[in-house]
């Protein structure tokens, strides 16, 4: 794997990715390139397999016993579905933020320090905590209460803590699975601002069912929908500005104008 250090053109690239749950094909033949240091949104109706695809990027589908994937997910020119790839390391490099804020039932400080420690962090933990909290635009709000339980924070703060926690293990890519679906509009906008800020240093892939959010926050948008056999397919992938003003495919048009189904 000497290619690991060679900058490949894309942060992640999928080629003919198929994902199955048992006999059911959840997504079909997905080929997508995710640009580095950009925010790419995946939108589509419920059940179109967008979260499934996102979870394929850090092998979270491994925990679903019936799930298996064919095709390629290229990360540093390496197919991550290959058995030789260490999923534990992969998940450090490709971090994830989940739908519901899920901080650990520990202090704010420990929430950030834990992941780093598990991954063998040896430096100054205080500095790491401050740095990542600043990156996540949370430092000013919590700097006096680092020992307080993370569960005492508001939903939006918890989600930013989860982002800070993901940053603390030094990832290259951050996957976000509907990160704002449990948040109020202001907290949502804060997260979107934060994503924009982070995209200078990280590649962000976000799954969202909120089209306005994709339109506001992303540089590229991929539209997924369900095929006639209910498996997910990618319909259109383009710059966000184009997808939301003049989509090429009628199905995209119908979905984003709210005339789906």
């Amino acid at each position: 794997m000497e290619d690991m250090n060679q900058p490949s053109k894309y942060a992640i690239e999928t080629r003919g990715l198929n994902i199955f749950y048992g006999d059911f094909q959840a997504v079909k033949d997905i080929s997508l390139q995710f640009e580095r240091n950009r925010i790419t949104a995946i939108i589509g109706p419920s059940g179109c397999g967008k979260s499934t695809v996102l979870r394929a990027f850090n092998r979270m589908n491994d925990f679903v016993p019936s799930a298996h994937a064919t095709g390629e997910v290229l990360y540093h020119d390496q197919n991550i579905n290959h058995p030789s790839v260490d999923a534990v390391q992969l998940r450090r490099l490709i971090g994830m933020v989940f739908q519901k804020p899920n901080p650990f039932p520990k202090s704010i400080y420990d929430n950030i320090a834990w992941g780093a420690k598990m991954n063998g962090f040896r430096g100054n933990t205080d500095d790491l905590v401050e740095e990542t909290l600043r990156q996540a635009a949370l430092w000013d709000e919590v700097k006096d209460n680092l020992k307080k339980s993370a569960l005492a924070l508001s939903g939006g703060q918890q989600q930013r803590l989860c982002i800070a926690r993901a940053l603390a293990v030094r990832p290259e890519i951050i996957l976000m699975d509907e990160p704002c679906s449990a948040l109020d509009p202001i907290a949502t906008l804060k997260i979107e601002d934060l994503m924009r800020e982070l995209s200078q240093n990280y590649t962000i892939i976000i799954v969202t069912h909120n089209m306005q959010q994709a339109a506001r926050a992303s540089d590229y948008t991929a539209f997924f929908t369900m095929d006639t056999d209910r498996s997910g397919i990618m319909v259109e992938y383009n710059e966000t500005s184009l997808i939301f003003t003049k989509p090429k495919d009628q199905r995209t048009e119908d979905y984003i104008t709210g005339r789906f189904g």
Partner: protein
Amino acid sequence: MPRNTLNRQLNMVQDEILILGSMVEQATRAAVGTLKSRDLREAKLVFEQDQIINEKRFAIENAILILMATQQPMARDLRTLAALLEVNTELERMGDYAKGIAKVTLRMGNAEVNLPMVEINQMAELAVGMLHRALSAFIEENANLAVAIPKEDDRIDELFNTAYSKILHEMVANPSTIDNVNLALWVIHNLERMADRVSNICERTVFIATGELFEMDGMDEEDLNV
């Protein structure tokens, strides 16, 4: 199919645009008519009614903004609303042209002036006709119809040129009426500009249908004249 609220409100705005369009048509016809009849009361009415057109324009603009803010339209809906906003402005300008023509009548008063009324009437009829069809195409979002309309502009340009030389002749022949004849240049200019703005409406129609924006008649007459 969801989005019934958006559809209904969009239709309402489109209806308002059609009404605005017909108000402009009427004003143009009436203004040109007063040139011949010298009905100063009528001319004054046209002049004053432009205020109503202006108010309607603001009302429509407001409705479009509210629709954008509350319904968050995307893609075609968004383009339609953006185009409506544009067309709204264009119509208001056309209203100003009609007002300008009415103003010419008021300026001339009952003075004896030899105007190229044949050309002026034809230009007005053509421009109003183009506007009417352009609005229909716009509301129907029919790009094919819309593409054909700007080509009629050539005919208007011909009439403009004929009228222009006739006016020059008149100026040379009757230098005493030069003040009033000069005003006729305004009239044909306004009518010619009106046709140009019809082209803009057609451009928006194509934009709604395809998402593409381009200038329909590459050579804008205005560039040559001014």
